């Protein structure tokens, strides 16, 4: 496993490197976008940790370029006031994001989720998905909660399966709308929220303390898979 850390601050690079080495991952470092592009082109990189605020290039351009020829997992790291860029990065093809300062534990957990997700997409997708008390049979279109069947409208079911298939990953509002509705209009956002509220009411014991569907305010939704 070879990681590439693209980050202009030396000390942040150091401790990311350190934490990855502690998990026995190998690391390469780049402090500029140019350097990063060179390494990506010449090395067999398994994952990119990308800081959005680089001195020479826009991080989003790097994501777009990389997505042009490869699906190497990319985790974006950014400061808190860059929310819009996060959404843009995710829509451009980044796999996940973290807000600085982040906890190393969370960082490593995200890496695991991304890897597992990539692994799943290569092998054939499982027909039955199970997490905690929830069981979804993707073939028979049946959702069981604590063994009892729960009914969903076709649209709700589509949203739910989209989330489940990408469990652990943040899906932006745009992405969900594009996948399920096939288009994106600002007014659809409202109906997406209504759908999510309905799904939550059918799945969660308390909608304000969700177990399965987590909200990332201003960004999108994440299906909790652990």
């Amino acid at each position, binding site marked *: 496993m070879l990681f590439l850390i693209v980050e202009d601050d030396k000390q942040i690079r150091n401790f990311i490197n350190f*934490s990855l080495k502690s998990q026995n991952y190998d690391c390469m470092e780049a402090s500029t976008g140019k350097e990063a592009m060179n390494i990506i082109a010449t090395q067999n990189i398994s994952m990119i940790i990308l800081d959005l605020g680089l001195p020479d290039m826009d991080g989003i351009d790097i994501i777009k370029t990389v997505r042009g020829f490869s699906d190497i997992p990319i985790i974006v790291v950014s400061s808190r006031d860059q929310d819009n860029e996060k959404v843009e990065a995710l829509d451009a093809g980044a796999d996940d994001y973290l807000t600085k300062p982040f906890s*190393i534990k969370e960082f490593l957990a995200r890496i695991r989720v991304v890897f597992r997700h990539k692994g799943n997409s290569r092998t054939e997708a499982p027909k039955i998905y199970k997490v905690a008390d929830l069981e979804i049979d993707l073939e028979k279109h049946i959702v069981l909660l604590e063994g009892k069947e729960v009914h969903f409208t076709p649209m709700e079911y589509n949203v739910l399966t989209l989330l489940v298939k990408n469990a652990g990953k943040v899906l932006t509002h745009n992405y969900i709308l594009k996948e399920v509705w096939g288009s994106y209009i600002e007014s659809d956002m409202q109906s997406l*929220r209504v759908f*999510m509220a309905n799904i939550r009411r059918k799945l969660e014991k308390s909608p304000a*303390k969700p177990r399965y569907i*987590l909200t990332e305010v201003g960004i999108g939704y994440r299906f909790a898979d652990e």
Partner: protein
Amino acid sequence: MLTLDRKNYSNIIKQCAVTISLNASSTLLSLMIQHLGFNEANIVVIYLLSVLITSRYTKGYTYGIVASVISILSFNFFFTIPLYTFKVEDKSYYFTFIVMLTSAVFTSALTSKLLHSKEMTDDREKQAHILYSLTSSLAKTSEVLDVAKVSSKCLSNLLVCDISCILANDKSKSQILTVKKGCFDINNIEADWNEIEIFVKNHPSFPIKIRGKCISYICFPQEMDEMIESNKFLFDSIVMQITIAMEREILIEEKENANTETQNERFKNNLLRSISHDLRTPLTRITGASEMLYHSLKEDESLKLVSEIYEDSRWLTKLVENILSLTRIQEGRLALNIKKEAVEEIVAESIARASKYYPDHKVSINLPDEVLFVPMDGKLIEQVLINLVDNAIKHTTPQNEIIVSIWPEGGKVWFEVYNNGLSINENDIPNLFKMFYVGSNKIPDSRHGMGLGLSICKAIINYHGGEIYAENNEEGGATFKFYLKA
């Protein structure tokens, strides 16, 4: 009043004397003319002339009419046959009398009217002059006290009387300016507003009101009462001019104050922001490095130290982020991203985040069954709720209750964070939301922050057009609540 009567009396005597002497002299003149053999028509004309002159030099219609009647009688007595009686032989004289009387009355009436309107014009000109000189001297003033000085001096000169001007600076302090025969006297007295009001009641005076608040009184001496009564229009205009001038000065002053305040505020914000920006990167490093150490160290003693470094750096990071958001909101530079958000999503996310590091504290939630959509900047309201829940956690033990409730009510949606832990010191409540206010209810061993968390909440809520409140609960603990417009 006695002086007034006496004055009137002498006036009447004077005018009667004028009337009678004029009549007498015209009679004498007529007798001379008759002696010279001129005919009667000349005599009639002479009498008419005397009535005209009488009207000119007396006030009102009365004297003119009296003069006309006396003229007729004298004409009758001295010049119609039989002489020296009021009898008339030739009946045609009646006609002469009637014509003479009518023309005499008319002449006197016309003259009086003319006189009256001349007086009015003079009066108006005088008023216009007073107003003009007041306005032009007020145009050069530069503060409220100046306006008061200039206007009292000006009024005192123009109206030839003493003037007192009372200025209320604030609740306890007032200034009294008196102009006596052109000499200034300024007293700074700490007069009770009640005393001033009594003084004001005893003198003819005009309040000067700006935005419904009385800031000054112009008082005239008592003998001016009548003049004020009869020149109400003039005095109203004077007061209006002074009010306008004072209001202008107050507005200018307010604007200047506001300008300096904004500049100070901007300076403070810039300073805070640049410091915070510079702190951010090293803090990320410290947090990351200390967490790394924490996970890799095995030794107990150092582990404790490192975990404290980690906790502190996380707390500092939160503070720095709060300062950055606050400076951005205060400068109005924060572009609000207002969208209709589902309240339950925001609440769920905030509580999950706030209680992440405090798994022992239980936070319960009361949400209405229906989905509430409220226009807001989701990220910012999330930050408010995180700050409030975080605050509640800090002031409670895991045995206490923290309840977050949301309910819609008449076009508003209320958010409430309740806890039954420690109460807020009552004295702190009005200052809770002020920037950098540190409460007096110190919790031992806690980082009490700079009170920034709550001031940022207030800034965000106000920016949304809502309001935030804090109160103590009877059973202990505190409740924070705010509303957003639905």
